[in-house]
């Protein structure tokens, strides 16, 4: 059952991320739902599932992106694992702390991707950080915090995390 839930989640992420989200983009920036999903799965289901689902998301999304496969695997897999680890260590996760965590993770993954860019100088690199990496990190953080807040209004998230 869980497997089919995860499969549906990964299959739905692709059209959402590639087709639907650019309609709600702000200044041509759309949130990275793959990253947010990996964090949520890691947080609620633990390190192993966070890692495996993160890897699956990274692989499938990389098929529909010009980016490198290894970077995608490392980023999403690593984020799922990290979220699972931190989720088990922190007793009180709030929407604010989750949003800030996602923002930091998104900045780190953006900078890692940027380091892999070829033929760009420092001024261009800084321009990309300002115009893409930071706004996207804010967007990711806001979406993650918003989703967590919605979940916390509907369910007992602390219980969900410890079940």
């Amino acid at each position: 059952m869980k497997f089919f839930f995860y499969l549906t989640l990964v299959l739905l992420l692709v059209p959402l991320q590639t087709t639907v989200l650019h309609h709600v983009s702000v200044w041509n920036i759309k949130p990275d739902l793959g990253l947010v999903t990996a964090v949520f799965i890691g947080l609620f289901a633990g390190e192993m599932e966070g890692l495996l689902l993160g890897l699956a998301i990274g692989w499938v999304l990389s098929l529909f992106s010009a980016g490198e496969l290894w970077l995608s695997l490392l980023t999403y897999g690593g984020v799922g694992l990290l979220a699972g680890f931190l989720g088990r260590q922190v007793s009180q996760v709030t929407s604010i702390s989750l949003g800030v965590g996602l923002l930091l993770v998104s900045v780190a993954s953006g900078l890692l991707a940027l380091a892999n860019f070829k033929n760009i100088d420092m001024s261009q690199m800084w321009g990309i950080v300002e115009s893409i990496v930071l706004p996207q990190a804010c967007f990711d953080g806001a979406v993650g915090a918003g989703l967590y807040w919605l979940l916390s209004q509907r369910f007992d998230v602390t219980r969900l995390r410890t079940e």
Partner: protein
Amino acid sequence: MWMVNSRFSSGARRLAFACFALLVAVLFLLPGQIQGLLQYLDGPVGHVVRVPLEAVASIDSGIADRWQQYVALQGVREENQQLRKDIESLRGQNSQLRESAAATERLTALLQFKEQALPAMVAAQVIGRDATNRYRAIILNKGESDGIKPDMGVITPAGVVGRVVKTTGASSVVLLITDPNNAIAGLIQRTRDEGIVEGTQQGLAQLKYIPLLSTLRDGDRVVTSGLVGGFPRGLALGTITHIDKQEGALFQSAELMPEVDVGRVEEVLVIQASYGQSTKAMGGMDLPGKPAP
């Protein structure tokens, strides 16, 4: 705030970290093998993912069509009047071009030039944009099973759109001309000076490595030079809008306004073989109609 959760077994946690460490090691030590293994699986996975992707893309384009047909009709009357004026002016230009075409045909026949074959192309629909914000890329609904391979050029009748960088069985990713990671060999049509067209961070393009002695000016058109694979010579890339000539620099560079509005492109043509190869590779492929003179 911090606590140690004993419920979750530390063995499973160690296993997760070990798996990740192993993955990192394998990715760095055996990148080619991992890439090859995953590429082998890309085809079937691409076909599975294509189903929801195309379903959502068709719903999306249906909604966009309805919006354009019924809701976003403000200012259509003014646009219509402007278009009528444009038609009048284009009719005049068309007549002149017919004359030029006829003259060219006569001269070509006179010089006994062998007529160039049109490149083999396949039409494809844009079904999405890059999954991340870091690349300017579009996703096409055709892939390896339709004969599309990486490095093939992608165009519209207006000009160059970009280059295929990744394919699955049923889809392909095209890096747009406006992406800073893309580089296409270009030629200034008037002066015949060559350079490299790269995307800019602002979503435009720039022509780099233009010889210092080039007499280029604003408004000059830049076309593909045909030197590097993917594109035949003479496809429109853009128009020069600003020239950057710095003192002491070895080359000039120029900003370009791309000929194709890549943000709105919906259908494209993928060049499967260039002029020279097209006659060998044309079997079973869609060919566009030859444009009327």
